[in-house]
């Protein structure tokens, strides 16, 4: 890759993880945000340059990195596609399944790489889980449990579920992708959602084609909790599990630092954000697949939409046929 300039669109929460990772990978970063937060981001991380217009990016960069709010993913993605620029898009790939499919199809037809940033596949504990399961450590996956919880977001657009898709598309979409990665495709979902005074919990039960079952729990809490993720995966021969709160490699007591309550803690030496971006750069260079593909991003949204429909209708949603059917049970 000769041109090593990335166009980062959006300067909010997740951009704080991407910008330092790009700089660490030796990229120059042009940051554009329609909000006024780009200069602050650049100053905070001591790198990158502010671009005042989006066109400035599209004309000069080799990779577009979309870290803007969910409802802009689709239009920004198509703008990048127009310029045939390989694009990494923060999850979810789009606000709706239809938009995600259009985007993925568009990139595929033009042969331009599109990479949904399902970063949890690059968190070392989840990668270790996948490797161990593939190696047969626990036999055939049978019952899986994934939990993800953090404080309710304070930003306006997150709280508007029409724009963000709520806790389902913000947090649970990660574990939807991981459950598929570990135990395969999904045939049926059932879910419940409770939104109460600013807290939001979604609990989903997935049935995999293999017969395995998964329970996903995602919570935005108004209570002052630490960001936390857990998994507990059992197969025919054993159990594997992890809890981000159980064995922290670093703990401290003292005043909280600003803006670190929306991202999970990670080890800088194995930064999952750096690993994720590096995987995309590698795949652009050598043409091979990334660990998570555009199709995976689309499938995660397909399942998420079924979960949303199940929660709204109080019915199980069958995904096993080409045309979805609502269970009559």
């Amino acid at each position: 890759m000769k041109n090593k300039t990335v166009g980062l669109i959006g300067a909010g929460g997740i951009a704080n993880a991407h910008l330092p990772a790009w700089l660490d990978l030796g990229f120059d970063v042009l940051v554009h945000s329609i909000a006024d937060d780009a200069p602050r981001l650049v100053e905070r991380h001591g790198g990158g340059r502010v671009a005042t217009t989006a066109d400035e990016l599209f004309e000069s960069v080799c990779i577009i990195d979309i870290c803007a709010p969910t409802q802009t993913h689709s239009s920004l993605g198509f703008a990048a596609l127009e310029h045939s620029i390989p694009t990494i898009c923060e999850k979810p790939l789009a606000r709706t399944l239809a938009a995600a499919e259009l985007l993925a199809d568009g990139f595929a037809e033009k042969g331009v790489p599109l990479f949904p940033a399902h970063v949890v596949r690059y968190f070392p504990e989840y990668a270790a889980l996948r490797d161990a399961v593939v190696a047969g450590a626990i036999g055939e996956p049978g019952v899986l449990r994934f939990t993800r919880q953090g404080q309710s977001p304070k930003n306006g657009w997150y709280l508007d579920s029409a724009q963000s898709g709520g806790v389902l598309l913000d947090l649970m979409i990660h574990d939807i992708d991981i459950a598929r990665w570990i135990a395969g495709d999904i045939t049926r979902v059932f879910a419940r959602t409770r939104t109460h005074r600013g807290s939001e919990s979604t609990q989903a039960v997935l049935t995999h084609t293999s017969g395995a079952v998964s329970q996903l729990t995602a919570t935005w809490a108004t209570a002052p909790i630490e960001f936390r993720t857990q998994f507990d995966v059992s197969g025919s021969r054993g159990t594997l599990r992890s809890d981000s709160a159980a064995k922290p490699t670093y703990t401290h007591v003292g005043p909280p630092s600003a803006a670190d309550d929306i991202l999970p803690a990670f080890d800088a030496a194995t930064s999952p954000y750096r690993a994720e971006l590096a995987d995309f750069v590698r795949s652009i260079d050598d043409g091979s697949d990334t660990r998570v593909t555009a199709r995976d991003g689309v499938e995660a949204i397909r399942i998420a939409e079924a979960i949303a429909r199940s929660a709204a209708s109080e019915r199980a949603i069958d995904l096993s046929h080409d045309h979805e059917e609502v269970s009559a049970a």
Partner: protein
Amino acid sequence: MKIAVLSLAHTHALEYIAALQRHPEAELVATDPDGAESPAELRGAPLALTLGVDYLESYEDVWAWHPDAVVVCAENVRHHDLVLRAAREGVHVLCEKPLATTVQDAAAIVDAADRAGIVLMTALPVRFSSAYEELRAGVRRGDLGEIVSVSAANCGSIPTVRAWFTDKVLSGGGAVTDHVVHVADLLADLLQETPDDVYAVANGIPGNRDGGVEIAGLVETAGLVSLHYPSGVIAAVDCSWSRPAGSADVGDLVTLTVIGTSGVAEIAPFASIIEGWNEHGALTYGYGLSLDQRLIDSFVAAVAQHDRTAQPDGRAGLAGVMLIDAAYRSIDAGGPVRLRAVAA
């Protein structure tokens, strides 16, 4: 006070006998006539001998002994007949969970106890956990604000020490029958309501070394249950027998996470363990007060005072059976089901 342990089929009988032996006022006997069906397992008089408890040959011998109370530890399907007989004899009952294998049987048990005026308690010992009592007190005080949702797990190994657990005819079912009731009972007590909508899925993968989802003729080993309560609270429960045989006790037999609007609480009532290693592998030892002891203490006190309000009672047991029934109906239907109302 004369107390008889009816059957040694459920291994909790061993814990209850040990707990009863700490009550000098209790004169104790055991009987295990059906133990002869399982010659490969240590049952009957030889087991009673190792436990240091007097043994009677038959249930009729027990009734002729005129006990004040009985502890029913038979195979699940046999609870109904034994409790109904105890009610006819006017004898107080502590019954192992689940109270019965059908809603009809469980309702008949509660009804018979009411008519006979006997104490009927269901063996749901997690209710006596200090961690749970602290959680309940905190919720009542409003420490958590309003409860939004709950996630819970009760995961253990397949109980292979007794073959009947995995024989549907005797047990009524597998992991869902065995494990969902503890958590459901805590939630019923904590929320002061019972669920109105239940969704469940199950498979036979955990422990199935031959591969595949079904274990022919056996019972489910994985179960996930999703509950909705009339107040709007939602709960997710993992009740699987998903721990591999030989798992070290890491104190997670039951866990409950309660998300409230102003606080989040988590309990692990069995987490009081010390851990270590020797040349053979992991070492774990539980410490602190046994929940079975607290259950037995409460039952003995209830019998002594003829206190029919002692908890968890027969209705708590019935609520558990209703939930199990709904979970199996949901598994069969492939969708959520409403909890069936029972005329009480």
